[in-house]
């Protein structure tokens, strides 16, 4: 990892970037390292994600994108480097603490709770539910309060269902949904946490074009509401058209970082993707 000199964010970022908040850094990853046995999956990756922006994380298979996600969100514990979220060091955080900070992820393969209904799936992530304390759920007086909270929560769940236009599957078991519906559910569920930043791991994989557009519209709508997005995606078109900034990973480290236009013309990136000496 010694010779992987990380480009400082300013260098490739010469393209016009109208975002006024561009100095407001939501997430920064510095020198991240993750090894599995003898294999170094992430090898000194460093990058930053600006608040309120939509950033794409791309790279060929095996570049370490998903592992980077896992390290940020605590599924894996990094072997080196730091992760800062809104200025706080969250390196080695536990997965459930992430949600407390407002940092929420989705999984590449949707991880719906297959035997729970869509409604249950969506009620699950809500934070600070007093009913998650055992005694409050049991004792009669506290229970009334729990039921009141549940009704409020259900209201919110329906709003989210409406937002994603999936009210018709509300009572369906999540395991019976189609692949695309699962993706929607996965994102809806992440939103129920009321996060500040969303990490989406291949949100469009296995989604048909119609649904893909819908999903993108939702993401843009949310972005306007102030959410920050970091998206791992293999569909280059999609990333180039929708993201303000793109981070390219290759062999565990960041190969390039910048506006989409600068990325497409970057020779290194082309080589990494086409695997040819151009």
């Amino acid at each position: 990892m010694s010779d992987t000199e990380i480009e400082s964010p300013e260098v490739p970022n010469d393209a016009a970037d109208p975002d006024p908040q561009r100095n407001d850094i939501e997430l920064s990853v510095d020198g991240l390292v993750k090894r599995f046995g003898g294999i170094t999956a992430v090898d000194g990756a460093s990058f930053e994600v600006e608040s309120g922006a939509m950033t794409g994380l791309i790279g060929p298979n095996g570049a370490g994108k998903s592992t980077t996600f896992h390290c940020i969100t605590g599924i894996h514990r990094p072997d080196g480097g730091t992760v800062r979220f809104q200025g706080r060091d969250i390196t080695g955080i536990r997965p459930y603490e992430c949600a407390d900070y407002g940092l929420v992820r989705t999984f590449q393969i949707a991880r719906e709770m297959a035997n729970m209904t869509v409604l249950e799936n969506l009620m699950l992530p809500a934070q600070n539910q007093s009913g998650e304390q055992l005694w409050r759920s049991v004792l009669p007086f506290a229970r009334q309060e729990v039921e009141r909270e549940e009704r409020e929560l259900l209201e919110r769940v329906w709003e989210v269902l409406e937002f994603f236009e999936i009210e018709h599957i509300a009572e369906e078991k999540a395991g019976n949904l189609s692949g695309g519906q699962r993706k929607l559910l996965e994102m809806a569920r992440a939103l129920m946490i009321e996060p500040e930043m969303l990490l989406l791991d291949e949100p469009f994989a296995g989604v048909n074009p119609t649904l893909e557009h819908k999903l993108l519209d939702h993401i843009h709508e949310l972005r306007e509401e102030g959410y920050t997005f970091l998206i791992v995606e293999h569909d280059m078109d999609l990333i180039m058209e929708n993201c303000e900034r793109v981070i390219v990973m290759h062999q565990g480290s960041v190969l390039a970082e910048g506006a989409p236009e600068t990325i497409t013309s970057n020779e290194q990136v082309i080589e990494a993707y086409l695997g040819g000496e151009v």
Partner: protein
Amino acid sequence: MSTNTTDRRAQLESLWEHDAVKILAVFGTIYITYALVGLALGYSLDGIVNTLRRMTYLIAVYGMVTLALNLHWGYTGLFNIGIAGFMAVGLYVTMILAKPADPTGAAQYAGLGLPMPIAIIGGVVAAGLAGLIVAIPALRLRADYFAITTIAFAEIVRLGITSGALQEFTIFGTELGTGGGRGLIRNYGDPMNVIFELEVFSSFVDLTNSLFGFGPTQARALAYSMVLVLVLVGIYWLIQRTSRSPFGRVLKAIREDEEAAQSLGKNTNHFKIKVFVLGCALMGLAGILWRFRRTGVTPEAFRPHVTFYIWIALIIGGAGSNTGSVLGSGLFVAILFEGPQYFRRLVDQVVTFGDAPNTFAGSVAPILSGDVAPFVRYTFEEFTTLQFVLMGVALIVLMHRRPEGLLGHREETAAAIPLTRRPGDESTAGRGGDSS
């Protein structure tokens, strides 16, 4: 009319959807069958009622444990096969706490002489603590390792109370004992005396006497079974509340995908520890109620068999359903536990067998010459053994044919309120007729 019959079937099916109907139908069938068979054979009324009473007692106790196991396995996916150990902790601690401090006569070992309610609370807390001790190291383990750990724990408990070293011991200057292999004798008053000494109880005794020809002992046993049914209802209520809540929702999520639940901000370990301790405490309570009225207890009562029974009951009923747990324990007791014995008594009454051969060889040899009678006689002689074989086979067949049990396919919604329609929307439009 075919439409008429389908209508009726649909009606019946919708009726069957109600848990109360299910319970009534299953238990009604069980009790009526037992009673009818008894009547047909000319059993005395008090004999029949006594059989039903004993069955009620067993169903209530096993039902409590099955509900607790459902909380562990059905809801959270914690593979506990150390049930007998937690029951043993509950009962032994309660008995040691309740036994008088000065041992007299046959009751060799001293206890603390505490009042029964405190002793029961002590036993339940001890079983919960035992659960905590097992949970903290074991919860990180894979399900199969977790299972092995729990059964090892149960065996440690059983071997520990059997060991001579703990037969009698002194702690903080107080002499106590588990009785070792010889067990403990109950030399405290009947824990049910609170009820039995009530004025009204004597009229209950009179009533049972005039109805079924019961004596006072039988009347007490009947009253005890009824109390246990009330406790079962209480535990059912408790667990229903636990599971139909945000708490229960997290439990289900842990069962489905623990890592995803963590990513959604749930500290799953906290939930697992809480629910494991709660279930173990309930198992302890069931252990206490199971045997604290008996004249004594030996460690033999807590062989892994008990755990096995509960698992069969759970799988019959269907993991994940509380109603299923109760139905499962009913069916287990009626068909697999008491049924074969009842059947045997039936046959004994109808047919008079000659002497059975002493060995399997003695029973098989005549088959070669076409005489099956000795084999049948031997089989009857060894009926209790075959009953265990039957239980094992039943478990295998269930896992092959219907691993989801009676009600396991049906998911019970984990929320404190019904999730059938949109809140505030009284019509059914909220069901999503407006799909895009």
